């Protein structure tokens, strides 16, 4: 019997050495390299099997006014507000360095209407060197005013528009702030999405005990970390039961056991978000922990356990 269970994972045609990704916006590979040196981006010490960029938008954004974070019991609320260099800034200043990462590159994108998404996907596809796209649909469509990811018809319409533009996998990042995420997931699948990822953060707020006013500069934000794990696990389970495309599970993953739980609930790969803030190498720790759990349970192949808790 082999000592180390294989964590190699095929995901949307990508070969991942580890089924652990980072959640978008929770690990900046370029900043990590600047702080910790080249070791941070080397094979073997880069903490993830695939890298998801912070969400980029067409125009540069500076993000929300401070304060942007608030610690909660077993979690945090953030109102970062998607600061990014914009499409052109990303292409010029970040994509070349991100292409050099030792793992597949998934670029997260957001726009305020379908044409905006289409322009970004078109431009990024032409630039090359990107292995997949993640569509962050937790934003309102400026024309309809509806949050794309809260409406099956908006999600399906977006996919209809984007699907012809790229051969690359399209991953739809689902919001947990809906009653039935599986309906959105089904619409994404019907529209031609290659995978769905969930959960994004849960709407949340915090009151400053001194001023009695909202603490966060933006008034409210999104909750993440172990505090949301049971909710995320149930949503992953519900979505995985409904769709046949692969699911990226996330929400409060801190260790091998929690990653294992998401796979049992039906996830093909698992993403680590807030835990990266507690340890820059959290992704490696989760991967090793998962290996350990599989070894203890005598499991050699992740496929054998995936989704077994559905019924």
């Amino acid at each position, binding site marked *: 019997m082999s000592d180390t269970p294989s964590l190699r994972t095929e995901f949307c045609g990508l070969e991942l050495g580890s089924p652990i990704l980072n959640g978008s916006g929770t690990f900046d590979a370029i*900043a990590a390299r600047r702080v910790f040196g080249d070791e941070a981006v080397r094979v073997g*010490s880069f903490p993830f099997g695939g890298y998801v960029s912070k969400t980029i938008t067409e125009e540069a954004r*500076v993000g929300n006014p*401070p304060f942007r*974070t608030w610690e*909660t019991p077993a*979690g945090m609320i953030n109102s970062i507000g998607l600061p990014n260099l914009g499409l052109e800034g990303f292409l010029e200043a970040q994509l070349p360095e991100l292409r050099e990462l030792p793992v597949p590159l998934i670029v997260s994108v957001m726009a305020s209407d379908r044409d905006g998404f289409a322009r970004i996907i078109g431009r990024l596809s032409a630039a090359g060197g990107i292995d997949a796209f993640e569509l962050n649909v937790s934003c309102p469509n400026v024309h309809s005013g509806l949050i794309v990811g809260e409406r099956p018809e908006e999600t399906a319409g977006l996919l209809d528009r984007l699907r012809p533009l790229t051969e690359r996998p399209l991953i739809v990042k689902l919001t947990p702030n809906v009653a039935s995420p599986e309906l959105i997931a089904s619409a994404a699948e019907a529209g031609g999405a290659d995978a769905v990822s969930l959960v994004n953060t849960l709407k949340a707020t915090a009151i400053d005990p001194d001023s009695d006013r909202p603490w966060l500069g933006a008034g409210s934000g999104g909750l993440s970390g172990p505090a949301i794990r049971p909710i995320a696990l149930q949503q992953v389970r519900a979505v995985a039961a409904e769709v046949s495309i692969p699911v990226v599970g996330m929400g409060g993953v801190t260790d091998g056991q929690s990653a294992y739980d998401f796979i049992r609930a039906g996830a093909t790969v698992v993403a680590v978000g807030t835990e990266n*803030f*507690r340890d*820059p190498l959290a992704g490696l720790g989760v991967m090793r922990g998962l290996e350990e759990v599989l070894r203890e349970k005598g499991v050699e192949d992740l496929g054998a356990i995936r989704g077994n808790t559905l019924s």
Partner: protein
Amino acid sequence: MPPERPLPPLGRRLAPVTASWADGAYRVLEVSDEEGPEPLPGQFYMVTEAPDWEGSSGRPYLPRAISFAAAEVRGDGVSLEFLLDEVGPGTRALSALTEGSQVWLTGPLGSPFSDPGEVTEGALGAVIVGGGIGIAPLAALRRSLVQKGIASRTLLGFREPAAAGGVDRLFGCEEVRVAYESGDDSPARVTDLLARVLAGDSVGATAVYSCGPPGMLEAVRQMCAGADVGVELALESPMACGYGACFGCAVPKPDGGFLRLCIDGPVVRGDAITTACAGEAP
């Protein structure tokens, strides 16, 4: 050119607490870091109780960014001293640690203080202005200035004598003036002491370094701008990660955007930001 930052080990590591004691209103946590490089004054660490926070309330959850107040290379590593003010669940948990416990450390992180000549053109000496727990990184700075043979004057302020800590031990007594807001003496504020220094003759050849509560820092920043004296501020902000991952520690900069205090700071030039009170009610 700011000094080159020492390269921190990738990831967090366990470090033993070698001592802890009360020093006035503060608690001192001494930690032996056997893996990291010697930090530079102004740098900080992300610190968490290990193996993990034990709090049954689920807080603290994130590590806390703490500047080191003193660092000394010993045979078995770097002995780090952190000055703690118990302001919330994180600092409370760290303050409860004693010899034999362990912490998780990530760092040293962030930008260090520059030499006086980099802060104010031609400056050979320094004025150090600290308030409250903000004296911690300044203690490390002052010590390094002494080692480099650079003259400095230190001005420290506290709400009241009972709220002070660490002064004698970390700063010695020479060239240090302390102001208490509660006292009958005037001046009562450290910024009053600074005003006098800035009104002096030799001020053009001085660099100011400051750390303390946001209101004090903003006053120092504006006073130095008015006197045309360069100033470096060590700022504080809620920080989730400390290494540029979360974009949480935003501080407004003059071009309309924000800097990430953990990697673009915590030490910043006074003219690199628009306010030291980011996030505070105006």
